[in-house]
């Protein structure tokens, strides 16, 4: 059995606690993410997928419970340490591409490196290699807003991978894509899996959770884990 890379125990996320608009987004979720596997969080919108994803991706801290990433409890970590783990361990693919539209492709992809100690030359080389890999090297000096949807998606993925992350987290990656692009994406994600990376995807798109590269599916409803099925 593969090693569990991330596990949570009773992870709870409550927004606006003790206020009239209190909302329990995540209710005592305990899950395990195993190394090298593709895990899908499945469920309708509002089921707590995104909250769980952001907690295991060290984007936010749970209100209660434990979250252990690579053997380290991150539930109580100050934000700057969370940031440190996030930028060294994770690559994120968002529902929206979340690119800075007025800035060049090259800079968008390089941005995760800016607060780190990597030199300009090295960044440039890695960015070029990455863009080349996705076939958009020729457009590296264009502003993102000049690119087509498919190209923007590739930029977003290139950015997620630029720091060579162990774990890739994707939040509804196909929500804004047409069929052809979605197939493209699945192909790319499958490629990552072969490289041995761990992938966590939150989605309600059957095209993803029914495709055969998925190892485990975790179904969620109302902030709780409903069922875990392994292929």
């Amino acid at each position: 059995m593969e090693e569990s890379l991330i596990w949570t125990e009773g992870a709870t996320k409550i927004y606006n606690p003790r206020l009239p608009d209190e909302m329990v987004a995540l209710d005592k979720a305990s899950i395990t993410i195993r190394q090298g596997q593709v895990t899908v969080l499945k469920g309708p919108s509002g089921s707590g997928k995104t909250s769980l994803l952001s907690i295991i991706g060290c984007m936010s801290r749970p209100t209660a419970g434990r979250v252990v990433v690579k053997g380290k409890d991150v539930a109580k970590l100050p934000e700057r340490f969370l940031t440190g783990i996030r930028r060294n361990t994770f690559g994120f693919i968002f529902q929206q591409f979340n690119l800075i539209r007025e800035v060049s492709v090259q800079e968008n992809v390089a941005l995760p490196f800016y607060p780190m100690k990597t030199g300009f030359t090295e960044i440039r080389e890695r960015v070029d290699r990455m863009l080349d890999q996705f076939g958009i090297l020729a457009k590296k000096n264009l502003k993102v807003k000049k690119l087509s949807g498919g190209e923007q998606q590739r930029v977003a993925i290139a950015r997620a991978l630029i720091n060579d992350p162990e774990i890739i987290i994707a939040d509804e990656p196909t929500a804004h894509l047409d069929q052809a692009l979605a197939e493209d994406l699945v192909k790319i994600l499958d490629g990552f899996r072969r490289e041995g990376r761990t992938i966590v995807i939150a989605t309600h798109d059957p095209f993803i959770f029914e495709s055969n590269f998925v190892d485990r599916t975790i179904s969620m409803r109302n902030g709780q884990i409903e069922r875990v099925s392994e292929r």
Partner: protein
Amino acid sequence: MILHPGIMALLLGSVIVALMLLYASAMGVKILLQWDFQSSSAGQLALERRTCLISTLISYAFGFVVLSGFLYVYTVDDIHQLFVGAMCAVGSLNANPIGWYVLWTKIGSFFLAAVWLALNYFDQRAEDFPLVKLKYIFLLLVVPVVFLDLYYESMYFLGLHPEIITSCCGSLFADSGSAVAGSLAGLPVKPMMGVFYLFLLLHSGAGILCLLTQATVFRYALSLLSLLFFFVAMAAIISYISLYIYELPTHHCPFDILQKEYHFIGYPLYTTLFLGVLYGLFPGLFQPLKRLASLREEVKRAERIWVALSMLALTVFALLSSWPVWFGNLTMQGYY
């Protein structure tokens, strides 16, 4: 009151910084009261984020304190013409002795803010916010000094009355007999020199022992010696170093050495002195932090650097201040 651009700049800056720190300390109090590391509530997260703002505010304030120290000395020097008998900044300061307090509060806030920033540095290194309470209690000590500085500064400048022509008889009888003393009297040269080099030697000795051993006592000794050395060095500058730099046997001014006529020698001199004393103070001050498990290694690592920097800075200071004594043109035979 003298409506002088430099005075306006100083007062404006001091008011702004005091307000910034007031805001910071209000938030500090809030943090002290509500801090609960075990809680994961949104409120706690907001407090954690606030610490980031407070440390930014204090870094800016620290930068301001350093710059305003220079601006203060310059300004005081620039207005000395307005006072009968004032030959340099000392004359302006004597014209309203509160001016000297301003100097002390500025030096005080420099050291306090530096210590705060060092505390903050350690706090941010550890994953469990070990120093939060200490940091904000200490902040509440720093802020009054900054306000005291603002108060003294305002009182000093408001209390300055330039001696200008009066209608009846010129300025000369307006303030009869109270012409400002232009210079400071220095301590006797030769004993002062001895004390200066003795303390320098003691400081280096303590520094070397700190680097060689782990004994706490040497670290406390180093800090104490650094503190004493600060006063010894100030006295030495007034007593004889300035004389050798000016090559005048009677000019005891600690400020003129900042000027172009003396090749700005005062800048490296004071910079090395302040840094040397500051880094020398740190090891002793931060000894208690070693009791915290999450910081012990961090403090040990920083300590070695501090001791080394302190010794380096004070060595440079000693060389700079000895240079004119050994190689200058002034001979002080008659003045020993």
